[in-house]
């Protein structure tokens, strides 16, 4: 059972119009830049996929990665906790122009909704957002004398995740704070595609060190020396590059 995919284009070939796609990363850390750019390449060549619902903590930065996906017009709705960042000009302009829908979710609730989706738990109660605008319309219940807000699970058709080392069975480790949403999103998508910086044979990863077990992963593709969003933005990169 080898889950290796031959290239990035093959890895994102199954994503269709209107799908929900979870994209790992917190800001630039853990952002699967190359998988996102492969998806943009497909859209530029075929006009698909479009009308996507994207789940990410943020709304992208600059004109690469998630921001470039939004800028290309492929995203109809964003589910995130913090769409403001150093340079979120792409999302901001499209949101204020009414061209993209936003579902704002507190960060811990976003994580737990994804975890619940992956764990087969349709709803849960959290103290987060009780009494605030973000709890409007949601059921509230008291447990041991305190009020809690009911939140629903979050699942996706695809997850695009960046990991550090992975084996051909899909067992994964992550790199530092690049882990963030990755292990959760891997569990919550029908099809999880992971770009790994080092693709290894089974047995090369210490079983004690595996963070995401391969059962949650459907495809791995090796991207050695992946780009960092922060570096690209400091270099004022734009994706796709504008033809001169």
């Amino acid at each position: 059972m080898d889950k290796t995919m031959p290239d990035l284009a093959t890895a994102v070939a199954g994503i269709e119009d209107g799908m929900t796609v979870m994209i790992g990363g917190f800001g630039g850390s853990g952002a699967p830049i190359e998988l996102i750019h492969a998806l943009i390449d497909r859209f530029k060549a075929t006009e698909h996929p479009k009308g996507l619902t994207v789940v990410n903590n943020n709304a992208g930065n600059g004109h690469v990665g998630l921001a470039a996906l939004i800028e290309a017009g492929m995203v109809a709705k964003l589910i995130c906790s913090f769409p403001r960042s150093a340079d979120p000009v792409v999302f901001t302009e499209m949101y204020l122009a009414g061209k993209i829908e936003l579902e704002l979710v507190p960060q811990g609730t976003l994580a737990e909704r994804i975890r619940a989706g992956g764990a087969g738990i349709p709803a849960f109660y959290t103290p987060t957002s009780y009494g605030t605008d973000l709890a409007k319309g949601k059921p509230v219940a008291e447990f041991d004398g305190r009020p809690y807000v009911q939140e629903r699970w979050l699942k996706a058709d695809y997850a695009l995740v960046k990991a550090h080392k992975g084996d051909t069975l899909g067992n994964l480790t992550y790199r530092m704070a690049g882990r963030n949403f990755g292990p959760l999103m891997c569990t919550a998508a029908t099809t999880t595609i992971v770009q790994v910086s080092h693709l290894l044979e089974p047995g090369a990863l210490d079983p004690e060190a595996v963070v995401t077990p391969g059962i949650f992963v459907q495809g791995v593709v090796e991207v050695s020396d992946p780009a960092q969003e922060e570096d690209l933005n400091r270099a004022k990169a734009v994706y796709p590059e504008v033809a001169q």
Partner: protein
Amino acid sequence: MSARLTPAQMAWRAAQDIADGAYVNLGIGLPEMVARFQPPGREAVFHTENGILGFGKAPEPGQEDWDLINAGKKAVTLKPGTAFFHHADSFAMVRGGHLDVAILGAYQVAENGDLANWSTGPKGVPAVGGAMDLVHGAKQVAVITDHTTKDGKPKLLEACTLPLTGVGCVTRVYTNLAVVDIEGGRFILREKLPAISLDELQSLTGATLHIEGAVADLNAPEV
């Protein structure tokens, strides 16, 4: 009106209340400065909600590793004992009552402990991040804020007028004029700048400052 504390002095004052070994989350911006002023002999363990416990200070420019950032997306460093974890574990630490202290910024704080710090109204792009999670679960939820807005309006109020982050969650407020506890739905004045009168401080506060026992002088060194 006497000199108010600088942001660094407010952060210094808040740092004096953090015990050795405490697990602490510092919000983006001014609260982050608290880490710089830990008293000698004490070492808190700092949590950042994107998934690091026990991180070190900022690296030298040019030495950044962009997989090693804090919740404000600024580069940090490793130190002995650092741990990484995913977001569900990170917010289990937050909501599960495992943090000793969370320190946040504020637009407004009400005498019942309500906090408004995420939205100034319907204009622009709304963003909440981890603030609504952080106000639940930490044993102490403290706020660092100027006592008044830039145009002189009180930020400590009978009731918040801006959208709430959390209900009845704040336990202590550090301002550039005073230290105020929130107990039983009331502001209790604990410390004030020596040079400001009680009347003047009350006039800059949008709810009654109650006094229980002595009010200590709020003094902070030049930092």
